């Protein structure tokens, strides 16, 4: 059973179809990826799934339930987390606070609890802080909880963003170029980390990558987008041999 499914999703900006009739099926517990050259519509597709752009046509299903018309916060609360291509942390909040914001949907206390500092709110807050600390350690940022997010080095910011997405206890996490700006060594470490999310926490992973090589390592299945359209899908081995994919990456005639 697929945890996330898009059916003929189309998103147009003016005359341009940024996402054109795209159908994906992501099975639970898998690592799938979407690749494609710049401007292929990968991030736009993420924005449609997470509710930031309303899709013009088609349908999106999460565990069989339609996501159409839901606000971004509702969609997140269903168990879909994401990260951003250009890291978008809350810069003037500390690492720990960033993670705690990520845990927002997990906290059940309400406004009145917060206003009156009720025992229930205090207990929950304490637990949340412990969990956040664990997550911080999990992504290798132990002892950096009080540092402001914007003071962290690039690689640590990426991992903090990941921790923030995990704090929501998502069932699926959409990662947008998690290895952008990293050297090959760092990329490999990051990919191993992503794989461990699936293996240890059982979270379904959907990846966007620009660079094909990184994908091939951990992805079980790859969708290829070009000019908003799905031009190929298959296992990494199949995709590597697909003439259409090679053409879209390297230009006509290269195949």
């Amino acid at each position, binding site marked *: 059973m697929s945890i996330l499914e898009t059916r003929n999703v189309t998103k147009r900006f003016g005359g341009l179809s940024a996402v054109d009739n795209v159908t994906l099926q992501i099975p639970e517990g898998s690592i799938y990826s979407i690749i494609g050259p710049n401007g292929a519509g990968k991030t736009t597709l993420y924005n449609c799934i*997470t509710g*930031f752009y309303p899709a013009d046509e088609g349908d999106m299903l999460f565990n069989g339930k339609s996501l159409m018309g839901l*606000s*971004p*916060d509702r969609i*997140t*609360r269903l168990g879909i987390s*994401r990260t*951003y291509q250009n890291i*978008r942390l*809350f*810069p*003037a*909040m*500390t690492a*720990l*606070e960033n993670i*705690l*914001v*990520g845990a*927002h*949907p997990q*906290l059940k*206390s309400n*406004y009145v*609890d*917060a*206003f*009156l*500092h009720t025992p229930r*709110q205090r207990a929950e*807050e*304490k637990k*949340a*802080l*412990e969990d956040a*600390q664990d997550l911080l350690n999990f992504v290798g940022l132990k*002892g950096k*909880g*009080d*540092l*402001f997010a*914007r*003071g962290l080095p690039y690689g640590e910011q990426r991992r903090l963003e990941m921790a*923030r997405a995990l704090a*929501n206890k998502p069932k699926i996490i959409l990662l947008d170029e998690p290895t952008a700006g990293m050297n090959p060594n760092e990329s490999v470490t990051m990919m191993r980390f992503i794989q461990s999310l699936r293996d240890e926490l059982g979270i379904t992973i959907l990846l966007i990558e620009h660079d094909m090589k990184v994908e091939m390592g951990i992805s079980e299945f790859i969708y290829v987008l070009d000019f908003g359209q799905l031009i190929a899908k298959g296992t990494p081995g199949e995709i590597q041999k697909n003439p259409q994919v090679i053409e879209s990456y390297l230009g006509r005639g290269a195949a």
Partner: protein
Amino acid sequence: MKDLIKQGLRLGSIFGVVIIFLILFGLTSTLSDILGEFVNLESRTRTGNPGGLMILFALLSLWAGSSASASDRSNWKSALVSGVSVSLIIGLFVAAFILLVGFLDSADVEMRDYLAQLDHLSVQFLLYGRSLIAGVLITFGIFLIFGILGALLAYWYEAKQAGEVIQKQVLVLKEKALDSKLAKQYKENPRSKWIGYGLLGLVVFITPQFLGKYWNYAMGTVGIYVLMGLGLNIVVGLAGLLDLGYVAFFAIGAYTAGLLTAPAPLPLQIGFWPVLIFSIVMAAFAGILLGIPVLRMRGDYLAIVTLGFGEIIRVLIRSDMLAPYVGGPQGIRDIAGPSLFGIAFSGKAYLYLIIIAILLIILFTNYLQNSKVGRAWMAMREDETVAQAMGINTLYYKLMAFATGAAFAGLGGALFAARNQYTGPADHTLMVSINVLSLLIVGGMGSIPGVIVGAFVLKGLPEILRELDLYRLLVFGGLLVFMMIIRPEGIWPAPRRRMELHEGELDVLPPEESLVGKEG
């Protein structure tokens, strides 16, 4: 050497022009009065204290001399050169100016048509009540002597490295203080924090006993501004929603309290305490009502719409149409003050009431700030889109921020109206919104102690500056501009705000705010 002279001349002319302006604005007579009183000189003219004026000029030239010599204090000669050049120029400027006005005055030219400050008495004051030549020479002499003295004193100070030594001593003292047993105990024992709060509370509760009637009133006003500041701090400082019509909620609080307790225009006359609660609820309700259509807007648009809302409320309460219901331009009189067990709150007791309200609001604000609600607000301020992607219902939290801020303003308004036993449209102008916003900026956005400091500076300082009479607002404005230049983050800012404005200087939370320490 040439450079030194050039710099001295430049600085001297700046000082000279500024001093002439001070005279033209009549600020010199006010300042000289203060200085004269300070050293107990008797005033000899009606417009100012001549002895004070001499002291003022001497101080100014000391300042000019020392700052002129700042560029090169390696030997006494260069210090002397800069001192002479700067003081010569200032002396020439000011003396020439005084000579000119003195001459015109003796020729019976009426200068007041152009320059309001230059009447005969003022000119006499500028000449220290002496003859034209004597007055001009004294002025010139003061500037020359004290300018050179200033430069040489600065050189001497530096030569002895007194500056460095003192700085070192201060540092050592600071370290000692931090290392001292007491400080360690303070850091290690969380209970001592509460003892500190207790002492502070004691001071807060004792102070009103020593204040006179006037200061009690002035402090009450400061307190009401603290309440409003705490409310707007949530809206602007935490949630990042720029609200320029904040006075609307203050007005709603004040008018709710007024209408329900006063005999006219509505003959309701309900007691103060239930009405106080009702005023808060009404203001919060108005916050939500305004929020629903408005909060989909971001940034500047929101600012404009709220600005309009504030004006609408003011126009409504002023209008003749609604006058039979809300009192119109005359406002509402005979608003009931609070009483407990038959004893009416007034004067000191009322100040205590305001203090208690502030303490409660600080407590609640603190709770909110350190909860998921506070974090959601901060996240929205940082990046609204991402905040929503974190599962935060941004519209709900904006409404809550608006309603909370409005409720605090409503409380402030009700306390304000009941204290004055009157409220009218003149109490609820745009200036109130601007003042509250300014106190946040001056005190430090997003910081509770900052709000208190800001309210004291903005509403308390003008009271202290009353000595300066007409010029208090001029001086006050100057102080604000000066402060924003040297300390843009505010007097007592929240650490994250300080970090935003001073990149690289501070990228970790101070230990007392640490979240890591709280765990487990």
